[in-house]
């Protein structure tokens, strides 16, 4: 019902507000003293409040990085848990300033939803999880299987495409939230559960017996996950994009949370520009020149956030793979601060 409420509030806003143009997000955030971030509330590794109510995860840390750049305080973020179904409406209606919720950047979303994607923070792809007892070793053996899936996702569409293109029969059971879908899979309602493969590792840990389930090797789609902002506020989009680039550059130059203070004295001009020792790069974003220093000091570089939340130092143990730096055979390529 939350979804209907969000959609209704958007309709009312559009119908009765005088000027819905989004130009001043940074100013609004500064005045409010807090960033409002749309996040996933149920996905381990990406966005999940711990039992004490502290939000953790890769997407969550990205919002904290933005808050650190603006306020020099990563805790000045209010997280709004969103489902796949209501996330875009929440961003469109201004309920959140930025959407950082494992969202795939697609052409139709970019061009018709009134929003812009800032930068691919995670290269993902869709996979399948099945009960081990089925003795299935490939997604191509799933002819006639029933699959639990979450609604309002690219996953839902890729699933139908994949089975159709391989001429396999499919029984889909669609749920409004990932929670309901995974519960149904766990109880045996479906043979398989499908979502982005990063999500599969997180969801597997929540099953009653994780070891009785396996993730199949096939990756059936490209899922470039990116934070999104409303279209029409270019300087806010710049800020969100460069938050990601700064974290990537820091990793490439070896600037970490623990050595960032020493790196201020570095002779490397690229590091000096990144950390604001030289140049006016922060001011051109509407921030102070030590904006990137603040991000790295409180959150760390891209690799640190990755390892801590989804990589080797986390229960998920996702390999860097496509998300390794371009210098190490991956796709993550930090743009130059110059």
């Amino acid at each position, binding site marked *: *019902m939350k*979804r*209907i409420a969000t*959609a*209704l509030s*958007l*309709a009312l*806003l*559009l*119908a*009765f*507000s*005088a*000027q*819905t*143009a*989004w130009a001043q997000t940074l100013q609004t955030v500064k005045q409010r003293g807090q960033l409002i971030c749309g996040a996933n509330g149920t996905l381990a590794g990406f966005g999940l409040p711990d039992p004490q109510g502290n939000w953790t995860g890769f997407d969550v840390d990205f919002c904290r990085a933005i808050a650190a750049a603006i306020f020099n305080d990563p805790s000045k973020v209010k997280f709004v848990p969103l489902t*796949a*179904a209501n996330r*875009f*409406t929440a961003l*469109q209606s201004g309920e959140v300033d930025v959407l950082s919720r494992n969202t795939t950047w697609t052409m*139709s*979303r970019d*061009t*018709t*939803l*009134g929003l812009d994607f800032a930068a691919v923070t995670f290269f993902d792809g869709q996979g399948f999880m099945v009960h081990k007892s*089925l003795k299935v070793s490939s997604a191509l053996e*799933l*002819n*006639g*299987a*029933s699959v639990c899936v979450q*609604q*309002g*996702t690219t996953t*839902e*569409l890729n699933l*139908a*495409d994949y089975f*159709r293109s391989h001429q396999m*029969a*499919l*029984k*889909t*059971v*669609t*749920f*409004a939230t990932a929670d*309901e879908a995974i*519960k*149904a899979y766990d*109880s*045996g*309602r479906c*043979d398989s559960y499908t979502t982005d493969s990063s999500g599969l590792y997180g969801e597997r840990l929540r099953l009653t017996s994780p070891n009785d389930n396996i993730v199949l090797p096939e990756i059936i789609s490209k899922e470039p996950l990116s934070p999104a902002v*409303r*279209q*029409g506020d270019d300087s806010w989009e710049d800020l969100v994009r460069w938050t990601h680039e700064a974290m990537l550059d820091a990793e490439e130059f070896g600037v970490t949370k623990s050595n960032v203070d020493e790196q201020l004295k570095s002779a490397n001009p690229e590091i000096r520009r990144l950390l604001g020792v030289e140049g006016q790069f922060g001011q051109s974003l509407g921030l102070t020149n030590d904006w990137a220093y603040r991000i790295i000091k409180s959150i760390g570089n891209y690799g640190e956030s990755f390892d801590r939340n989804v990589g080797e130092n986390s229960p998920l143990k996702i390999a860097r793979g496509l998300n390794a730096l371009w210098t190490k055979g991956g796709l993550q390529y930090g743009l130059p601060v110059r």
Partner: protein
Amino acid sequence: MRGAIKPARHGAQAWRVGLQVLLAAVIGGLIYGAFINAADNLARTHISSGFGFWNNSAGFDISQTLIPYSPGISTFGRAFWVGLLNTLFVAALGIVLATLLGFTIGIARLSRNWLVARLAGFYVELIRNIPLLLQLLFWYNAVLKSLPELRDSIVLPMGGFLNNRGLFLPRPVFAPGFSAVIAALLVGIGAAIVLQVWARRRRKRSGAPTPVGRWIAALLVGLPLAALALAGFPVAFELPQMSRFNVVGGLEILPEFAALVVALSVYTAAFIAEVVRAGILAVAAGQTEAAQALGLRSGTTLRLIVVPQAVRVMVPPLTSQYLNLTKNSSLAVAIGYPDLVQVFAGSVLNITGQAVEVIAITMAVYLTISLFTSLVMNLYGRMTAIVER
């Protein structure tokens, strides 16, 4: 005296009409303004608008489709109809079951048998005080999901299966000769109506009771059966088969569907039971006493004297219950039954991103269903109203 107050009333009347016209104009203007403003704002925020998406192909799959639908080929418009039909199907079935159960329990609550009355009272108090969503989750998660898994399916007689993925029954497949059976059934229904009308006329004319029930039963059941035998049983049954992953073939009843129908019927029946009880109690006790004084038996009294008068009182609140049931069917989203809200205001809204259009259509559909239900019930209410003679 009439002449004296007429001018004043006339003025007031004109003023009142003027005020209403003004009010209508203001409301109309507001709606128009909101519409124009929304279109303007959508364009400014680069959100696409309009109904062009209707004929674009919908790439997602739907678990229960009453009309042919295939992902990637069918359109969003088709998905809308699939969802709408699923909603209407659940609502219609729910209304019938809730009415049957509700009438039974409502009458049982008035029973002179202490145990029966108390049990009915317990049912009403228990069911209507627990939120529907909880009951729905109970039926789905606690009852239907605890059925055995696919590989341990309960095998039903005649080749059916029951497991946590649904109920699978043999599906009748009709051969061409079956039309003879349908024709026989139609003839039987026609003959039964004629017989009933004749019997009623005869009773009115002569006062003699003319029991034709047995003949009607024979016409309704015997004729089609005879046709079936003559045509050489033109029905085959497609049995559900256990395959590697699922039960395939046969008639499939999804657990999501079953849970929704059961929850809606059980919940609404508790309210209908109270409506029925109130309706019956609203008939003055003198009516029953008079009927008994005339020597009518209690069953006949209930059927001919009490119920016709009670129905008159029951129709308006019953209408509300039917409307509630239909609207409550949108709780389907909680368990993944593909109703209108789940398919259209869910998947379609998300894939197209056109919240304003999709929500407007959804609201208009529920409004139409509700107004239509009200209309039918009002007509029925008018039929059962006391006709002054």
